């Protein structure tokens, strides 16, 4: 490959040197600008050929550029003052036009699209050759255009300007028709192309218009024998041909721009953006609006793209190509086939897509895990609550009930022992007293485990009980009368109970206001005091535990406690 490239490069250099040498072999020297343009056109095609060969090794574009380059350079032979090179040079002077048409029709993949187009290209080459051959048969340079210093035309069969003129009259419409066909086909390619191909076609369309305009102008001018236009048309106008190699530069830049845009698009993409947004970003960056990002339908062999279109990897539409994503086995990219010419760009797109998808997947995984942890935390808290309720009920139905029965029996025994042994009576009295005290202690213990009044009557009754027992004067400003899920009620109760305990301990005030308000979808619990303030959420384990407790049901605890201006502890608890 490298050796071939080297050889081609040497060939190109040799061709350019040859052209310069040949042009300067004639007397008088031609105008410098004409020489420069002529050399520049040839050299640029040869250079573009080398570069295209290097960039798209699998494509014929490099070959076509190179052929066009040589087709432009070799006819310089006509400048040599010898009959043979003069004849050959003039004979092949316009082959480049045919290979330009070939190049344009094969753009951007290097392949002709149909048999018809192959036919058109063959016709163009054939007509080109025929035209040159016929004009050489009837053109005597000594009498027309070139003057007596010119070498002889070896092909001259009949020195008849009349025949030449007749042929020219036929050739103009044929040449124009062929040009029109080529131009129409190019426009048709552009019109039909979508996505990346269309992008690659845009520059070609403009360039074709310019080149065809030049060719038509040259044909018309030469047939009308506009001698004074020749310098402009044959010397300077060919600068337009430089647009051919420019096409190569443009396509290179397109690929480079797309690579850059791709990086930016991925960076700009919101983390966890849905796949359709990823597709849009990639399509925009690539300039391939037809890009599809398809995912395997779970449990089947089929794929669906982000727009919901089904994609069959085995049967893609014409001009479509498929690229698998590295590291993401269940997704693929389907794109314009022309994009395959830029394997690096495709690779980059695929890895960008898989990176983004992998990122999204990891994010979804983390989110799912977080959701699991949240759910399990809620379950743990709920299980704890349930366990406390059960313990309280066990105490109520068990020990408390038995102690009451025992007290009853002791009371009856005391009645029966009335008037009997005073020692027995006092023993029974103290036993009754013990049982009573045990009952009081047990009642407080049960309340500490779980306030039965909360389960029995709901928040309103439970808050009332809290307020009655609190050591700070507690006003219940607002509390909904309805019942809520046990976890919600327990959390709200816990918040108020802890907040009142904190007021009693730290706030240096004797009053607090409790308000529970139902807002759409949530319960707002607020305990406000006018005390010392300065409470910090991370200050004591009480507030931290409270925040955890509220978070366990998906709620948020906020503490507003500026020093010296009271404390407002508020919990927002989601509830259906």
């Amino acid at each position: 490959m490298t050796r071939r490239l080297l050889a081609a490069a040497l060939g190109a250099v040799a061709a350019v040197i040859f052209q310069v040498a040949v042009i300067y072999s004639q007397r008088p020297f031609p105008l410098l600008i004409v020489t420069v343009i002529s050399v520049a056109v040839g050299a640029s095609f040869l250079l573009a050929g080398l570069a295209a060969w290097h960039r798209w090794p699998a494509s014929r574009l490099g070959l076509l550029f190179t052929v066009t380059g040589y087709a432009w350079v070799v006819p310089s032979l006509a400048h040599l003052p010898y009959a043979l090179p003069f004849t050959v040079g003039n004979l092949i002077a316009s082959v480049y036009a045919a290979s330009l048409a070939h190049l344009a029709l094969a753009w951007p993949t290097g392949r002709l699209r149909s048999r018809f187009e192959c036919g058109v290209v063959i016709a163009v080459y054939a007509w080109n050759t025929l035209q040159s051959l016929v004009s050489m048969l009837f053109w005597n340079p000594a009498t027309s255009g070139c003057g007596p210093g010119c070498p002889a035309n070896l092909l001259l069969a009949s020195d008849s300007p009349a025949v030449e003129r007749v042929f020219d009259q036929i050739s103009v419409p044929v040449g124009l028709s062929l040009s029109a066909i080529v131009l129409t086909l190019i426009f048709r390619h552009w019109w039909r192309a979508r996505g990346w191909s269309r992008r690659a076609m845009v520059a070609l369309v403009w360039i074709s218009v310019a080149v065809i305009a030049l060719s038509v102008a040259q044909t018309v001018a030469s047939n009308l024998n506009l001698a004074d236009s020749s310098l402009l048309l044959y010397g300077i106008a060919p600068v337009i041909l430089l647009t051919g190699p420019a096409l190569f530069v443009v396509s290179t830049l397109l690929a480079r721009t797309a690579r850059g845009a791709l990086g930016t698009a991925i960076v700009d993409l919101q983390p966890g953006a849905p796949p359709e947004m990823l597709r849009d970003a990639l399509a925009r960056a690539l300039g391939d609006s037809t890009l599809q990002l398809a995912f395997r339908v779970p449990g089947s062999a089929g794929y669906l793209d982000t727009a919901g279109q089904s994609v069959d990897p085995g049967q893609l539409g014409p001009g479509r190509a498929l690229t698998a994503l590295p590291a993401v086995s269940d997704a693929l990219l389907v794109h314009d086939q022309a994009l395959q010419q830029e394997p690096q760009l495709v690779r980059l797109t695929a890895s960008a897509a898989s990176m983004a998808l992998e990122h999204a997947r990891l994010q979804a995984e983390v989110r799912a895990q977080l959701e699991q942890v949240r759910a399990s935390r809620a379950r743990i808290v709920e299980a704890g609550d349930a366990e406390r309720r059960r313990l309280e009920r066990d105490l109520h139905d068990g020990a408390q009930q038995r102690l009451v029965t025992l007290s009853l029996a002791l009371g009856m025994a005391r009645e029966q022992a009335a008037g009997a042994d005073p020692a027995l009576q006092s023993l029974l009295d103290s036993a009754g007293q013990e049982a009573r005290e045990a009952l009081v202690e047990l009642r407080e213990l049960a309340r500490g485990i779980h306030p039965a009044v909360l389960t029995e009557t709901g928040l309103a009754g439970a808050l009332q009980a809290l307020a009655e027992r609190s050591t700070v004067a507690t006003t219940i400003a607002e509390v909904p009368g309805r019942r809520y899920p046990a976890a919600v009620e327990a959390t709200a109760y816990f918040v108020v109970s802890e907040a009142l305990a904190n007021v009693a301990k730290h706030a240096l005030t004797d009053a607090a206001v409790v308000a529970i308000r139902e807002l759409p979808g949530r319960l707002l619990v607020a305990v406000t005091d006018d005390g010392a303030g300065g409470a910090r959420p991370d200050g004591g384990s009480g507030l931290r535990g409270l925040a955890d407790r509220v978070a366990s049901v998906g709620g948020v605890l906020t503490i507003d406690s500026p020093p010296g201006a009271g404390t407002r502890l508020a919990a927002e608890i989601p509830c259906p």
Partner: protein
Amino acid sequence: MSVTAPSAPLRVVIAEDAVLLREGLRRLLTEAGLEVAGTAADAVQLLTLVAAGQPDVVLADVRMPPTQTTEGLQAAVEIRRRWPHTAVVVLSQHVETEHLFELLADDPRGVGYVLKERVADVRQFTAAIARVAAGESVIDPEVVARLVARQRRDNPLAALTGRELAVLALMAEGRSNQAIAAQLYLSPKTVETHVGNMFAKLCLEPAVEDHRRVLAVLTYLRR
């Protein structure tokens, strides 16, 4: 309110789901000279018994099957509504004002709300049953004490004398002036004076009837 002749024993229905306690209560009440007309283990049985026998008094545990929350209380409220001649005493392991006010509704006559452990003092307990049967109210001292002791900002109760506070608490327990006088070793006249002063200090409308007084005082205390 009971039309039963003084000589006839009070007819009582007991609703309590714990068997030992239920049987203990039956024995206690029988030995105290009351007639146990039936026992129930849940609210449905209780309502059936009351509908059939229309007893003088019902003793009902707050918590009973199936939900173990406030079936007994609900049944008591229903009994007071449907059978005004049947008085109810609701027993509970813990006393709460929320229960109390649900039970009292607008009419505290013939209603009692006491801690279960009050059964230990046989005489006081049977006396409470008799009072309720006679149309009085019996409110457990525990819940009254809590209401009186409740922290209040600018507490109006601070203006009362110790004696007045004691009278207030006994009033809230459902006692009549005579009973308060007897308990505090005061003359009924003195009690009346205390009551008048106290109502004035608390800006309460003086109420003559005992049951209105109970409701007014409890409502005031609960604010």
